[in-house]
């Protein structure tokens, strides 16, 4: 084996440009596959971190009637905050949300919104809720996301009329004053959402002391079974991210396959050409006492060595590139806000040792198989005729 590796190394170096062309093509595949997988991994991490920080905390309790995909459930999705959670709420480790459907009228246009009541002193979410902590008699202080602000064509200090119906179905309307605009990559926190102080919304709706969602800070918090409320652990709330990543990864596998196919095609061709041109050499090996299996092994090792060279070359230029990408990130050329998913405009790839090792092993394995495939012909060769260089 040691001799085979030595011979393979010499043969590849001796082949010169032909070897390096193959190695360069294969190294591109290495770098691109690792980069794309890193982007996916980075997205997964970023989406879950942002969702935790902005939307779901360590997990939530939903009112049993609440269904985020059915706005018709919102007006019935509220009940008094259960006594079991009082101490956690007082400690600031749990925050109640009240959600109501409403309408906003920016510049005479009409747009459906979700009015969310949030505690201005909360510290679970990164929402600038402290900007709601202001006394105003002629307007309701509110914060909105940057996408929402863009849709409304509104800025900080602007006043917009909102309309809602209280728990009895009676229409009410008031002006909101936008005290802050925040930027977030979680659309569910931004698009169509208006945040106002919780006690204000409770009073507007006639639902004092009631909530729709209770979010706790620590995902390790023991689960309490409370009638009328459904526990939603973090894993369930982030399941859509997992599904999306899984779907995207499957889609990207096609790209990996195409990249590998191109590299493997080059290696396959090189192997076929080698076997064709080096028939005398093969005959000599056999004449010197090599078994056919050993000769096949030699050619297979030669082919597999492309992957080793490619891995080394990838490390030479790929490491700085991948490291720079991890720092600078990749900014998507299209507006990510329309995706409807928790996805930042700039994604920062995250590479793990497992990701790199698995990619190297995968490419090495595929290269070995592709190298072995044409080498099998050697086993069928007549050594005498091979020695004479007769085409078989």
């Amino acid at each position, binding site marked *: 084996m040691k001799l085979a590796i030595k011979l393979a190394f010499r043969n590849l170096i001796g082949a010169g440009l032909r070897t390096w062309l193959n190695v360069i093509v294969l190294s591109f595949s290495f770098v691109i596959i690792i980069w794309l997988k890193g982007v996916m991994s980075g997205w997964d991490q970023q989406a879950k971190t942002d969702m935790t920080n902005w939307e779901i905390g360590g997990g939530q309790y939903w009112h049993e009637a609440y269904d985020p995909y059915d706005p018709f459930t919102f007006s019935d999705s509220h009940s008094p905050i259960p006594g079991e959670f009082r101490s956690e709420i007082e400690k600031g480790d749990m925050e109640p949300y009240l959600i109501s459907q409403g309408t906003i009228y920016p510049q005479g246009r009409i747009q459906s919104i979700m009015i969310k009541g949030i505690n201005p002193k909360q510290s679970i979410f990164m929402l600038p809720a402290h900007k709601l902590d202001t006394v105003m008699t002629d307007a309701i202080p509110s914060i909105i996301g940057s996408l929402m602000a863009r849709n409304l064509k509104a800025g900080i200090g602007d006043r917009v*009329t909102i309309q809602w*119906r209280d728990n009895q*179905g009676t229409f009410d309307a008031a002006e909101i004053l936008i005290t802050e605009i925040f930027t977030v990559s979680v659309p569910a926190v931004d698009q169509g959402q208006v945040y106002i102080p919780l006690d204000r919304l409770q009073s507007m709706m006639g639902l004092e002391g009631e909530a729709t969602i209770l979010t706790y800070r620590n995902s390790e918090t023991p689960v309490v079974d409370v009638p009328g409320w459904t526990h939603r652990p973090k894993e369930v709330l982030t399941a859509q991210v997992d599904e999306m990543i899984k779907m995207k990864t499957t889609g990207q596998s096609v790209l990996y396959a195409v990249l590998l196919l191109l590299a493997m095609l080059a290696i396959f061709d090189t192997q076929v050409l080698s076997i064709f041109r080096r028939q005398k050499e093969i005959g000599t090996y056999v004449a010197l006492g090599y078994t056919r299996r050993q000769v096949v092994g030699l050619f297979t090792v030669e082919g597999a060595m492309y992957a080793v060279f490619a891995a080394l070359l990838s490390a030479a230029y790929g490491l700085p590139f991948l490291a720079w990408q991890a720092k600078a990130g990749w900014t998507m050329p299209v507006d990510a806000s329309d995706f409807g998913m928790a996805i930042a405009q700039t994604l920062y790839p995250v590479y793990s040792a497992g990701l790199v090792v698995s990619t190297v092993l995968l490419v090495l394995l595929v290269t070995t198989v592709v190298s072995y495939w044409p080498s099998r012909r050697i086993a069928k060769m007549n050594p005498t005729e091979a020695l004479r260089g007769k085409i078989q």
Partner: protein
Amino acid sequence: MKTILILILSTCFLITASAQDADNILNRVERNMSSDNRIFESSMIIHGNRVSRIITSRTYAVGDKQSFTEYLSPAREQGTKMLKLENQLWIYSPSTDRTIQISGHMLRQSLMGSDLSYEDMMDDRKITEIYDSKVVGTETIDGRNTWILELTAKVSDVAYHTRKMWIDTERYVPLREELFAKSGQLLKRTTLSEVNQIDGRWFPMKVVYKDVLKQGLGTEFIIISVKFNQSIPDHIFTKAALKQ
């Protein structure tokens, strides 16, 4: 002291008289506007930002509790039927050949993209049962003298907490109505015009509904023809009639 007492008594009397007057006015308006039954053809002009849509329909109604509407045009809406029985509403769509019940919060949706909601058609309680009313002034609208009535909800489950109505002092027909939020913000304005005498009653043939918070010209509702106290067969007010 005597003068103050007289003043207080007079004010109390005026307030009571005003409330009674307002209720009387509303009862007379109701007698004018409602009938045992009616059949009418109407056009609803929904003004959008760019284009306006005209939807024509024929409606059979018995009191305020039962009504059946068949949409005649445009082609997209033709054949759509709507049945209201007490507090239930069904819509039949010919394109899907299905009848669906509009209930709960779906009633708050816009009626065919207009400024009206399904719910606006559903509240059939007598106005004097759900609102306290008083006459707060007079005004002239298009040369007609009107009383201004202020109505404040006396029950909690009403859509609009406060309403203002301008009632023609001679014909007992509302010429304008404004609907207010609990906060006092004006939300909708209804303008009634082209008041004609039909079968001995005064009836407005044109109503313009306008959501005042929204830009645009609102929704016009024009009665093309109306017949009161006709004989309407009972089978019209059944779900089976929707698919016929």
